[in-house]
């Protein structure tokens, strides 16, 4: 059993070591880094990317990819404002509706991918442009502001001293880890990514699973958008631009194979934390933003490289 665990978690172990090393170095660079305040705050800042990375892990484990999450994020954000201000819906209803629209947009991706057998990269490249265009067209580039105070509790408030969105993220993280690791749905996800034909031939509901996964990806992007709007108190149609690259980087850094079939939610969590720790820690130790980007790119390649080299003599 330990042997199996080792094999399954090899990348996670490498990543964990990297993370610990990074944390130690970063903490040595700035006394502000290793403080509860800073760490909790980082949790707040990474909540949106973190949330979207969870369904993205599923997507990539099935061998797919979803480039449209940033655009769905923008679309949901804009619609939250439009539903609430222009259509006069009560804010809670508008929130739910905006999240649902995200889910529908995600289902749209899933539909194109399963029904027409369009490769996910292309399908979501198309909807990346399409959903962003809709967001811009619908909003006519106007921002919606002036939300009631209670709404900001979601993105700016705290529960038991921990940022509220961090709770949401932790709950979603546990649920995602549970689903992918322990349930029949998780097994189906891995089976699809390893060998979609064999999964289909084994009587698994492949299309339904993919539809659900892409739908969830959109839904969570919508949820993240609502949280984000609450954090920054305004909606704009350009929100979430380029978000997909951050999310995919975190997931791939977390050891999920871009070819599918391999990856864990725990790995994604580690990848996320490593990324955020680098962003924050390097900034605190005086490295500028552009330098941080370089380091993250290099760490991404290095992590996969090390993983490849180690697995070569493993298998």
């Amino acid at each position: 059993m330990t042997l199996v665990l080792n094999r399954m978690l090899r990348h996670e172990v490498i990543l964990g070591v990297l993370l610990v090393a990074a944390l130690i170095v970063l903490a040595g660079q700035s006394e502000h880094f290793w403080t509860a305040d800073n760490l909790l705050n980082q949790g707040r800042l990474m909540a949106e990317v973190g949330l979207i990375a969870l369904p993205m892990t599923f997507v990539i484990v099935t061998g797919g990819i979803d480039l449209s999450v940033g655009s769905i994020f923008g679309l949901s954000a804009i619609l939250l404002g439009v539903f609430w201000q222009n259509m006069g819906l009560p804010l809670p209803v508008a929130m739910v509706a905006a999240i649902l629209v995200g889910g529908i947009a995600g289902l749209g991706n899933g539909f194109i991918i399963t029904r027409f057998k369009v490769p996910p990269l292309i399908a979501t490249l198309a909807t990346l442009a399409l959903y962003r265009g809709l967001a811009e067209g619908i909003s006519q580039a106007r921002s919606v502001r002036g939300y009631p105070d209670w709404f900001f509790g979601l993105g700016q408030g705290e529960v038991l001293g921990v940022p509220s969105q961090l709770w949401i993220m932790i709950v979603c993280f546990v649920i995602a880890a549970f689903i992918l690791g322990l349930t029949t749905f998780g097994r189906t996800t891995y089976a699809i990514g390893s060998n979609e034909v064999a999964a289909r031939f084994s009587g698994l509901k492949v299309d339904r699973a993919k539809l659900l996964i892409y739908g969830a990806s959109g839904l969570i992007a919508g949820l993240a958008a609502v949280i984000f709007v609450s954090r920054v108190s305004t909606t704009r149609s350009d929100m979430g631009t380029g978000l997909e690259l951050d999310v995919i980087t975190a997931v791939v850094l977390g050891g999920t194979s871009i070819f599918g079939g391999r990856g864990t939610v725990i790995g994604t969590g580690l990848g996320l934390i490593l990324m955020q720790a680098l962003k924050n820690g390097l900034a605190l130790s005086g490295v500028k933003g552009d330098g941080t980007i370089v380091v993250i790119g290099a760490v991404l390649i290095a992590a996969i490289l090390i993983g490849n080299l180690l697995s070569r003599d493993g298998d």
Partner: protein
Amino acid sequence: MSNLLEVSGVSKSFGPVKVLKEISFDVRPGEVHALLGENGAGKSTLIKIVAGVINADEGEVRLEGKAVRFASPREAAAHGIATVYQELLLFPDLTVAENIYLGHAPKTRWGALDWNAMRAGARALLDSLDSPDLDVDTTVGKLSVANRQRVEIAKALSHDAKLVIMDEPTAALADADARRLMDVVKRLRDRGVGIIYVSHRLPEIFALADRVTVLRDGTYVGTKPIGEVTEGDLVSMMVGRAIDHLFPKVDTTPGETILEVKNLSYRNTVNDISLTVRAGEIVGIAGLIGAGRTELALTIFGITPATSGEILIDGKPVTISSPDDARRLKIAYVPEDRGSQGLIRPQTVRENVSLAILDRIARAFVVDRRQEGSLARQAIERFGIRTRGPEQRVKQLSGGNQQKVVLAKWIATEPRVLIMDEPTRGIDVGAKAEIHALMSRLAGQGLAVLMISSELPEVLGMSDRVLVMRGGRIVAQFDRKDATPDAVGAAMTAAKAGASLESAPLGFKGAAAL
């Protein structure tokens, strides 16, 4: 006469499995040297070593007296060795002409590829294969399997080869095409080319070969001039044991009809099929490649839902529009291609065995690992899967054990109808007998078994009834006692039974084994 090719003491292992053990044989110029052996005997591996695709672990290959060790197929080709592969290594998006000349295309004075010469050459080659109907400008992806085979052969011929290796070139060809090909082979031979010819069609070998070498389970059995052996000799050299063991069919009394299919059609590949399978009965389906057998199975199993017709289980009509539907109706399908359709190769035995019954071993969607583990251990024991344990990845198992995993996965669903497509393709003789025994035992327990096989001995040895398909239709039906190789073979190829040996090419493997 000096030897064109000499292979001496060649061994090769893949991981823990030793697939070739000290093989030696030789080929002379202007000779057709048949290579014979059961599936899994190591013929393909041996051919790949000669063709430079893989390297031998031990031993030596000498070409025209000089020791050679090819780093790549291109190097082998440069030395005048051309190969027609069994698994048709073509480029579906490229044209016929280009597929033939890729890698050694004619060039113009300026070094550009000469497409006109390429197309003219391809045309000429195909004409010499009596295939004037094949358009050199169409993409290979649009061709039928038989036509792709012709392209593959033309590709090998396009090299100015001293030695041509043909790996079951006639397997997918109908009678007339096969004869046409044999003419081509003879022409090559007369020109002084040495030919390694792999085929299961014994009559073909007798008509064509000068000498024959037999392999069994990766070992060299012997080389004989064709005149010195009979079919019976070759079969016993190949199989090396009594056939009774290979086909341990237990006589059963079939019970109620479980599966009934009425006028089932799928597009134009499955035409108006009607059949019944009863409990405890094994119904074999024979036919050539492309006869629509697998397509029929896929339609019953819901991968390609029927476009018309009816499927009945226990006399009640059912709708099967997905494999999931079929699974719920207790229909199981062990597919033709283990690697790509049957198994999740990177996953463990445990994960594969539970794949089709995940919902049943789950409590509130959570997979019960303990139950899963015991299921896997039971399967390992019951099916005699040779593995280090439930946590071994299936890609590390041998072909026969992989097939047992697929079978175990489906038996776990407690099916009432079991469809097996090429159940023993590419697995060694011992495992073959085990699979057959399992099949027989399952039927004995009341399963309705529908078996598709291209190995006529298997069909004849295991079936209670034999159906023959051709062109997507069922063209003949035999009871076990009436199913002779001649009769079934003739039905498959639409030739009259009792025709001469050469004109009754049996499109199946090891036909004369019975």
